[in-house]
């Protein structure tokens, strides 16, 4: 029990004291058992007030403090710092919220706001009197990060980490690096192509001896915890020798008898079972697609660098942290959604961009020349009935940019933008202006009068009630309908399932806080960057990658990590192993051990997050969360109920 407690009641200028009688709160607090000092401060967070607290603690040998001021969300680190500077354990301090949940919420009733503040402060005193002096848990950390995904986010993060001295295992499921950006042509604002950006990043990756790249690498399992994470990775063979003759390999592609739809071109073209997606793709050698190869051996006859005997390997990787950069999948419309797959001249934006890359002189689709292109926006984003309520952020810009590019590339093209409000934010607004100047026509509809795509004879028609012409129904007869499809989380959720990374309402990986902790997940040591976290354009993806790299490096670079000590603890005498806590724990932080002749559960400190899910399920109440123990909560309840 703490019995030399200091209590500080903050006026917050007049934010608190205008509605709460702080004198009365102080008076009653000073009469509570264990309280040896109670004071009112004008601003508890001010430097002068902090210095005074430090002096009070030292001169009066206080063994605990309560600060009654604003929300714990704001100043817990401030007052923990005060305690630490005064030589008091920071966990012998309790914050009481008498502003957001006191004076402000009840400014209509100062008398009862004061009553509530009195009881809340007394509850804080009760809690701190039972507080334990805790020491942060220190564990050693390996200064190595596993980056999952070698798209532009993964490569950018890897280069940044390696520049800062952290070793990187960069694992990529595909046989080539670059991810989705490789599929894109001209990029705004730099006018580099996607291929060029990928090439530049890959060359930087190659320069580093601190980056080890694995392609065809798939995460199989995960164990360990922050500082010492163990990953098992399956390496699918490329069936091509590391040192090889590119010319012979080109011949091998020619002779391969297997043809399959090419997913890189969103099934607009076909490729062989031995393939590369484009000429300058990295690594600069083709790969054999194991799922489609018949192993007929034709390629081996013309190319001795092919080795069909290569075997799958399972390797173990150890690192201090993991950075997830697994990217996104483009939304694929349902059959019949705006005529997708039911009307022959309807494509997605992603298919259209590949089509533009594949057509040099004339824009041709299904053998027909294209002169009029209509874009329907927000397909698979901002859904009224579907799950994707979010805006995909990049698609307005990407569609308009493509519309400008095709006009420049092919000349005589008319673009129609059937949209729900254009979101070309920031500098991207310049593209919107340029497209308007070049004569693109914008029509706008609301969610309650959706655009319709139909067949009318041999023509395709889009009917839209155009808000910009006072709701008049306008029919467009385009040669090609482009559905401006947005981003979705990856359909393959295996990585998230293995690592148990929480997802948000949009089903992308969830950060702790979008502004305060935007690249951290609730799992210590697992970071997220790029479009696996939510729709982002390249600039935004790069910023999050740099941020995540800095966070991961600063976590590991000291070689030692401090963890919050507010964890679950199990009373070994009370525990009679029943496995209910193990089933409730989402982090595998419970282990079964033998203790004094019986089996009991113990908490693995490095894995426990202190969520407390295990505590209520224990049939013998053997589990407590440090800082939220039965005695702490129950004495608070008593003080509040008085």
């Amino acid at each position: 029990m703490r019995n030399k407690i200091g209590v500080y009641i903050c006026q917050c200028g007049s934010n608190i004291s205008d509605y709460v009688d702080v004198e009365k709160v102080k008076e009653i607090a000073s009469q509570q058992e264990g309280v040896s000092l109670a004071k009112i401060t004008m601003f508890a967070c001010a430097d002068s007030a902090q210095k005074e607290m430090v002096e009070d603690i030292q001169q009066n040998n206080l063994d605990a403090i309560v600060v009654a001021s604003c929300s714990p969300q704001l100043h817990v680190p401030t007052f923990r710092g005060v305690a630490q500077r005064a030589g008091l354990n920071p966990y012998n301090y309790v914050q009481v919220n008498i502003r957001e949940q006191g004076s402000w919420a009840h400014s209509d009733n100062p008398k009862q706001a004061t009553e509530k503040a009195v009881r809340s402060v007394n509850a804080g005193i009760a809690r701190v009197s039972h507080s334990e002096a805790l020491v942060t848990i220190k564990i050693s950390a390996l200064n190595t990060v596993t980056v999952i995904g070698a798209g532009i986010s993964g490569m950018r993060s890897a280069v940044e980490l390696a520049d800062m001295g952290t070793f990187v295992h960069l694992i990529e499921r595909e046989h080539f690096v670059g991810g989705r950006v490789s599929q894109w042509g001209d990029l705004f604002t730099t006018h580099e192509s996607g291929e060029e950006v990928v090439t530049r990043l890959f060359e930087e990756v190659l320069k580093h001896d601190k980056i080890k790249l694995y392609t065809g690498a798939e995460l199989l399992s995960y164990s360990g915890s922050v500082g010492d994470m163990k990953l098992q990775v399956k390496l699918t063979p490329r069936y091509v020798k590391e040192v090889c003759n590119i010319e012979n390999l080109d011949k091998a592609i020619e002779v391969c008898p297997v043809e399959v739809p090419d997913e890189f071109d969103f099934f607009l073209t076909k490729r062989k079972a031995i393939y590369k997606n484009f000429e300058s793709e990295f690594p600069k050698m083709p790969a054999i697609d194991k799922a489609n190869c018949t192993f007929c051996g034709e390629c081996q006859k013309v190319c001795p660098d092919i080795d069909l005997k290569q075997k799958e390997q399972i390797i173990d990787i150890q690192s201090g942290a993991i950075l997830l950069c697994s990217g996104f999948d483009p939304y694929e419309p349902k059959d019949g959604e705006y005529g997708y797959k039911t009307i022959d001249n309807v494509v997605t934006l992603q298919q259209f961009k590949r089509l533009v890359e594949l057509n040099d002189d004339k824009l041709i689709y299904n053998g027909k020349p294209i002169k009029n292109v209509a874009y329907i926006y927000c397909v698979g984003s901002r859904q009224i009935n579907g799950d994707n309520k979010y805006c995909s952020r990049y698609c307005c810009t990407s569609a308009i940019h493509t519309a400008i590019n095709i006009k420049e590339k092919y000349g005589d093209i008319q673009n129609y933008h059937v949209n729900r409000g254009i979101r070309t934010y920031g500098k991207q607004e310049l593209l919107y202006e340029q497209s308007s100047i070049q004569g693109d026509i914008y029509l706008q509809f609301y969610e309650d009068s959706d655009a319709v795509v139909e067949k009318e004879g041999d023509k395709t028609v889009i009917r839209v009630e155009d808000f910009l012409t006072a709701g008049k129904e306008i029919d467009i007869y385009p040669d090609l309908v482009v559905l401006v499809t947005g981003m979705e989380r990856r359909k393959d959720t295996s990585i998230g399932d293995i690592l148990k990374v929480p997802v948000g309402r949009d089903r992308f990986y969830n950060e702790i806080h979008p502004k305060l902790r935007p690249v951290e997940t609730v799992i210590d040591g697992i970071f997220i960057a790029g479009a696996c976290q939510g729709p982002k354009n390249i600039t935004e993806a790069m910023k999050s990658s740099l941020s995540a790299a800095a966070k991961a490096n600063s976590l590991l670079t000291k070689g030692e990590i401090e963890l919050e000590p507010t964890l679950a603890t199990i009373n070994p005498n009370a525990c009679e192993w029943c496995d209910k806590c193990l089933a409730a724990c989402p982090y595998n932080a419970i282990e079964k051990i033998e203790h004094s002749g019986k089996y009991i559960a113990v908490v693995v400190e490095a894995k426990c997050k202190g969520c407390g899910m295990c505590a209520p399920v224990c049939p013998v109440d053997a589990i407590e969360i440090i800082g939220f123990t039965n005695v702490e909560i129950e004495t608070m309840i008593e003080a509040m109920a008085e």
Partner: protein
Amino acid sequence: MMDTVKENSQPKILVFSTEKISDPAIDLAGLLKMHYPPTVFTISLPCSSAIKSRWILHAFDKGFDGVFIAADGTDCTYGESCIELTSQVVSRTQDMMREKGLDPARLKMAAICSVCAEPFVNHMINFTEALSKSD
């Protein structure tokens, strides 16, 4: 004098909130000066699935009229199992309340997201009214 009688008769509610999700919503209500009965007290925990039945029963024993769990719901940063585990806490506790002759409606739960200030205030006003009528 009338005021005092009225205030004293207002039901007391204990809210179990969560540090990362529902606490910010309750703070936001205060920041926006959205008023709810001052007989509402809050104890904040890491996650709503950590609430023990014995704490809820203790609150009733000590004079609280209602207990409200401001649950994380689907926003829980600790994972999806939070919803199911918190629901289990509620149903287990309501069984215990029935055994003790307590009306299980005195324990309520609703998902309160980090910006759900208005829903929180409405819950507090409605719960207070419901508890007043049941008295």
